[in-house]
């Protein structure tokens, strides 16, 4: 449903209605928590309006699965991204206003080897949204060449999901080498891996970000 909406179909965007479930169904809530901020990708990337039920669903997912103490960076940042997306669809404000809770740490972006950094960032591709300032995006902006290197590595490993996630980060990051051929790479990833809806989602989100940046 999210991919269909990103491609311009599926009007009106109704995530909950598309899965014929209730907003308090634990399995649905857990699935949305895993999907993360991309539950609202059609809203943040294409300007669609979420239904009240979808907003309640995401609120429920944020409340039901907070990161535990000592949780992974992926879990903490995914939770941050969902709260930022909720704030954005409620207020229309581009930046997050996340209250007194401190932001998750970003030191790993600078300290991890580029292979591991790319893998971690690909898990958090839902945060690669144009116009969403975040400490994570600021940290990524300091390693565009390493991220490009990780993108190529993922393609060569035929890890299409990681490649798509890395490509989405590259689409919103300045300083990416033009010699990378990101647009062609995204086309290849879509051709090879779009049978996986997660790959199709990341590639389409990256292409929308590219179209927004160029137009």
């Amino acid at each position, binding site marked *: 449903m999210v991919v269909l909406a990103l491609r311009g179909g599926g009007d009106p965007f109704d995530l909950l209605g598309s899965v014929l*479930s209730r907003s*308090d*169904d*634990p*399995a*649905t*809530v*857990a699935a949305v*928590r*895993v999907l*993360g901020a991309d539950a609202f990708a059609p809203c943040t990337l294409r300007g669609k309006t979420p239904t009240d039920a979808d907003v309640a669903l995401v609120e429920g997912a944020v409340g*039901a*699965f907070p990161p*535990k103490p000592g*949780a*992974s960076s*992926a*879990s903490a940042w*995914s939770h941050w991204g969902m709260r930022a997306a909720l704030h954005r669809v409620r207020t229309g404000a581009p930046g997050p206003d996340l209250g007194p809770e401190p932001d998750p740490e970003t030191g790993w972006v600078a300290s991890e080897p580029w292979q591991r950094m790319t*893998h971690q960032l690909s*898990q958090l591709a839902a945060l690669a949204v144009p116009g969403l300032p975040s400490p994570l995006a600021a940290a990524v902006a300091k390693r565009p060449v390493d991220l490009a290197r990780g993108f190529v590595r993922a393609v*060569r*490993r*035929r*890890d299409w*999901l*990681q490649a798509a996630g890395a490509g989405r980060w590259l689409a919103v990051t300045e300083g990416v080498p033009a010699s990378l051929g990101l647009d062609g790479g995204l086309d290849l990833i879509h051709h090879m891996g779009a049978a996986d809806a997660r790959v199709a989602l990341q590639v389409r989100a990256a292409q929308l970000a590219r179209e927004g940046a160029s137009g």
Partner: protein
Amino acid sequence: MMPVGTPNTLATETMADDVESLLNPTEADGIFRDSAECAGLLLFVGALLLSPQTPRPKKG
């Protein structure tokens, strides 16, 4: 009649660890194509195709 709905008895607490592991999976093993192996296989198949026909016993 078969039940059609997801049982609502599944508590979110029991799925918290599953959600955490899905949010932070380990890196998948890559699928590599060994260029030397591919070239060797190609040469072997080519040699088979180009080899002379197997001698047959003459009739009569």
